[in-house]
């Protein structure tokens, strides 16, 4: 039954392709229905206590392709389908001013199919194929508006993304050359004895290079700062909330923890990349006045937190990293939706031109206040707990510098988001925005849903931790014998 996650969006994409031209909002109905069904299925995967293995075409494990859903991929399934469902509801009224919307919804369903396909597959080459589907549909979605900046940003994203995918394909070629098998479980088994061969290490470094291009970690973050502001807001909330996480962090952690086995110098690499992108992301974000570009730089620094948490490798660190990944997808997509709401009403992304919006757009300003507080890590909200775990893990693993940098970066994040609040919502000086009214209901619904989720996760974090985050991190912690379960 697992194949539903990637086949249902494909079926809805084809239906939209045929019926989309007839009536205007048929395509929205099909897309939202499909993502709602998948959201329910993704919640169901938590309650199945064993690893779901499905062999496509009935062939035994190493010969055919097998689909694997364990607790770690069910965490990602929840994140993907939740944010997709809310962005689809949001884009009902946001996308009214564009015509031929069926292209948008087809590409959205294909992006969903690609992301779900990446998460449920248990085969290395299949991972690459679905990664391509998700990347190409996100290039097309970034270029959807057709303006000058969007096209140029999408072209830069396409070039860097294709370099990343060719590195990943090169890594797969080396692994196939040495082990001549493509199934992840089979690879991890046959890696037991011939681990430190130079071709395996070269393949691993190619994978890390390719996937860190996809996650926009610091040396390769150039495309993210252009791509996210250029995309329409529901897409940029999908991009920074879900796509860079699933393509990058899921791929990195699945390869490093479950296939290659975690060791000391790998954790050094991850910690270095994490702290570097954490610090550089926030430093770049301070001087920004374009709301969406500021949020894009903050995504880079928050992903740095997640990679740092995973890099520490201790159970506390992995739980902190995954929990921060879960929280970050919630409040970062909420922030992008707020930016979209402001842009929907005032047609500007520049913080200086915004004015006293809190009276005029109450829900948007309150939800963005909640999101800003939780991204900065203020106690009652969800961001605090995950950052706390990461900082504790860093100090327990006596990485003093990393711990202090974590605290420093979260302070700077707090400062820059207070600036956002002040200029966007509470600035009493320019009064020329009195006449506008609140954004339509569909945008309000998804923004308030995410804001309530932010609060709930913050308050009931032990519940969330035990049912979703803890089992996912157990999969990573006991690493290699995850595949023994699959093979027998």
């Amino acid at each position, binding site marked *: 039954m697992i194949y539903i996650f990637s086949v249902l969006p494909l079926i809805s994409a*084809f239906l939209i392709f045929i019926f989309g031209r007839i009536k205007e909002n048929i395509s929205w109905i099909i897309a939202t229905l499909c993502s709602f069904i998948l959201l329910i299925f993704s919640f169901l995967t938590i309650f199945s206590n064993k690893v779901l293995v499905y062999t496509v075409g009935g062939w035994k494990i190493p010969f055919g392709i097998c689909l694997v859903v364990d607790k770690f991929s069910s965490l990602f399934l929840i994140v993907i389908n939740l944010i997709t469902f809310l962005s689809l509801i949001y884009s009902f009224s946001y996308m009214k001013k564009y015509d031929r919307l069926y292209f948008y919804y087809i590409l959205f369903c294909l992006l969903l199919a690609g992301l779900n396909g990446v998460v449920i597959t248990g085969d290395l080459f299949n991972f690459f194929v679905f990664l391509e589907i998700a990347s190409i549909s996100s290039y097309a979605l970034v270029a959807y508006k057709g303006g000058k900046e969007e096209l140029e940003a999408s072209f830069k994203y396409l070039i860097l993304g294709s370099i990343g995918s060719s590195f990943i394909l090169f890594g797969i070629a080396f692994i196939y050359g040495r082990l001549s098998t493509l199934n992840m479980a089979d690879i991890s088994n046959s890696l037991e004895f011939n681990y430190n061969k130079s071709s395996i290490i070269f393949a691993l470094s190619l994978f890390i290079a390719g996937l860190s291009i996809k996650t926009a970690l610091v040396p390769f973050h150039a495309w993210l700062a252009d791509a996210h502001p250029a995309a329409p807001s529901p897409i940029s909330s999908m991009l920074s909330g879900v796509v860079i996480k699933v393509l990058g962090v899921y791929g990195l952690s699945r390869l490093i923890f479950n296939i290659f086995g975690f060791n000391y110098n790998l954790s050094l690499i991850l910690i270095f990349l994490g702290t570097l992108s954490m610090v550089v992301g926030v430093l770049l974000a301070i001087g920004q006045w374009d709301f969406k570009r500021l949020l894009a730089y903050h995504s880079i620094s928050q992903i740095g937190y997640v990679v740092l948490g995973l890099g520490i490798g201790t159970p506390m660190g992995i739980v902190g990293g995954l929990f921060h990944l879960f929280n970050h997808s919630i409040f970062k997509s909420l922030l992008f939706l707020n930016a979209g709401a402001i842009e929907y009403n005032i047609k500007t992304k520049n913080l200086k031109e915004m004015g006293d919006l809190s009276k005029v757009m109450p829900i948007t300003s309150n939800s963005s206040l909640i999101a800003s507080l939780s991204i900065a890590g203020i106690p009652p909200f969800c961001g605090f707990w995950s950052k706390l775990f990461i900082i504790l893990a860093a100090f327990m693993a006596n990485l003093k510098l990393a711990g202090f940098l974590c605290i420093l970066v979260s302070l700077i994040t707090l400062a820059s988001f207070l600036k956002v609040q002040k200029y966007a919502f509470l600035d009493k000086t320019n009064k020329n925005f009195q006449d506008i009214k609140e954004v339509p209901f569909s945008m309000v619904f998804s923004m308030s849903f995410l804001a309530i989720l932010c609060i709930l996760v913050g308050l009931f974090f032990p519940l969330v931790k035990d049912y979703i985050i803890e089992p996912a991190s157990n999969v990573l912690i006991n690493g290699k014998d995850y595949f023994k379960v699959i093979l027998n």
Partner: protein
Amino acid sequence: MKNNGGMSIIVKRITRITVSLIFLFGVYIMLHGHLSPGGGFAGGVIIALSFIHLVLAFGKDFAFRYFNKTLAFFLEGLGGILFLVISLLGIFIGGIFFLNFLPKGSPFNLFSSGIILASNFAIFLKVGAGLFSIFIALSLYRLSEKE
């Protein structure tokens, strides 16, 4: 014959013959996908090339009378849905996603390998119509560029 768009008369005379040959060759490659090299992908691209050959030789307006955008979209959608239906039929009949449920026959004759022939045909439709609609979009775009 007034040369309305497209290349010279000689090219048009020759393309009348070669287009049908290329089309036939593409269908042959697709049908014998499981017996000889080639298959759904190669056959589909050859079909798309035969239509592009027609458009390049006879000019856009002549070629689009027979094979315009809506037919390309319809064929592509049909090919995609056919391929999904084949994969899903495996569930209803044999309970497994991509099961080869059709009778397999004996090795060397045409209807021999179950769903391989059927999915070859589905991919053939999708690749052919898809690549041709890319070419239509590119050429229509350039057309409006001139106005």
